[in-house]
């Protein structure tokens, strides 16, 4: 790993100041993705800005008909949160299945969402639940936030503060994990929300995406059989040593059926 300066600001304003002044500085929260990337020298920041000293970025709050989860909230804390378990059990379940216990004890929702790994879990929930990503500058709808593999609407120096999840009528998540890396091979997050029924696929493609045919099928008839009749095209899906694009396409329908069953 190349060396870098280390900063630990205690406010969002101070963090943004450091990040804005140096385009090669990178924020770090749990570091479960950034540190492995730095070890591989995929990234050479001049400085890392540790956000863990910023108390206002941590924790889960229920605000009316939505849940607000601070960017620095760890996967383990989301999984164990009584507020999340009561309001959006599928989200608590998703958090409890990320990586392994040690990863969940360090990794944060803000890091996962900002990184937008195609095989990550959280982006699927954010998009399917029609959540809003809150930064230090603005509010970004999930539909506008995710822009393909490791790419988001975040601008350099812009800091993710929280994610606001409207509480859905029902939601469910199912995924097939790579047994070694535990990353998602193919997953589906389905939700019945105020803005309609959403089906989001993760792991299978170059980024999370809404599956329009499945949304239509579930709008007409909310059942596992209904979504199970929709075939996912393999065009544009990921194929690698762990599974071909055709295999992932098949998994998408299986995971969508399981997600609907889980949602009830």
């Amino acid at each position, binding site marked *: 790993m190349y060396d*870098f300066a*280390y900063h630990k600001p205690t406010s969002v304003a101070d963090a943004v100041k450091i990040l804005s002044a140096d385009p090669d500085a990178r924020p770090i929260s749990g*570091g479960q993705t950034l*540190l*492995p990337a730095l070890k591989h020298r995929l990234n050479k920041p001049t400085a890392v800005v540790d956000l863990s000293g910023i108390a206002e970025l941590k924790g889960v709050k229920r605000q009316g008909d939505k849940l607000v989860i601070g960017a620095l909230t760890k996967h383990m804390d989301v999984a164990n949160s009584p507020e999340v378990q009561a309001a959006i059990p599928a989200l608590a379940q998703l958090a409890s299945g990320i*990586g*392994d*216990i040690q990863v969940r*004890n360090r990794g944060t929702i803000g890091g996962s969402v900002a990184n937008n790994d195609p095989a990550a879990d959280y982006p699927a929930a954010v998009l399917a639940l029609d959540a809003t990503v809150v930064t230090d500058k603005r509010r970004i709808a999930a539909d506008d936030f995710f822009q393909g593999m490791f790419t988001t609407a975040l601008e350099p120096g812009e800091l993710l503060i929280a994610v606001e999840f409207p509480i859905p009528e029902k939601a469910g998540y199912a995924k097939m994990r790579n047994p070694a890396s535990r990353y998602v091979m193919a997953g589906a997050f389905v939700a019945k929300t105020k803005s309609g029924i959403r089906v989001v696929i993760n792991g299978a493609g170059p980024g999370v995406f809404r599956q329009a045919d499945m949304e239509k099928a579930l709008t007409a008839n909310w059942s596992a059989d209904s979504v199970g009749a929709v075939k996912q095209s393999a065009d544009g899906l990921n194929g690698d040593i762990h599974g071909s694009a055709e295999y992932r396409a098949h998994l998408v329908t299986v995971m969508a059926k399981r997600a609907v069953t889980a949602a009830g």
Partner: protein
Amino acid sequence: MPQVTLTVNGKTSTVEVEGRTLLVELLREKLRLTGTHVGCDTSQCGACVVHVDGDSVKSCTMLALQADGATVTTIEGLAKPDGTLHPMQEAFREYHALQCGFCTPGMVMSAIDLVQKHPQGLSEKEIREGLEGNLCRCTGYHNIVKAIAAAQDVMHGRRSELQPAAE
């Protein structure tokens, strides 16, 4: 050079580190606590697991500076000063839960965290799932799972002594 102050196994130290120094490097190279192992160095194998403020973490995937002010427990901090082993260590010995022993410190640290967070007790399935972050290349999982199942009874006070392994 930046400094980090942390309490490891009850002893507080202040150490000079680089920004890029990992917690496991601080433990092994600065504090000479070499019981914590580096296996894969890619956050997969769990040989480097230690407890930071009561939670198991992979010390190869945490900066030393991120542990500033933290309380850290490593495998060296488990046994009593008179050498009496922690019930989990004793269970690993009794159940022959190791072959080469390389993964053992991380296994023991993960197992203790897992048991402590589940006072209601863990089933065999839950123990296996709870060990997802630890790899054993000798494929010794069966005895590791048996050891953890036996140790949890002692740790939660359901038995005063470890259930002996079957002959």
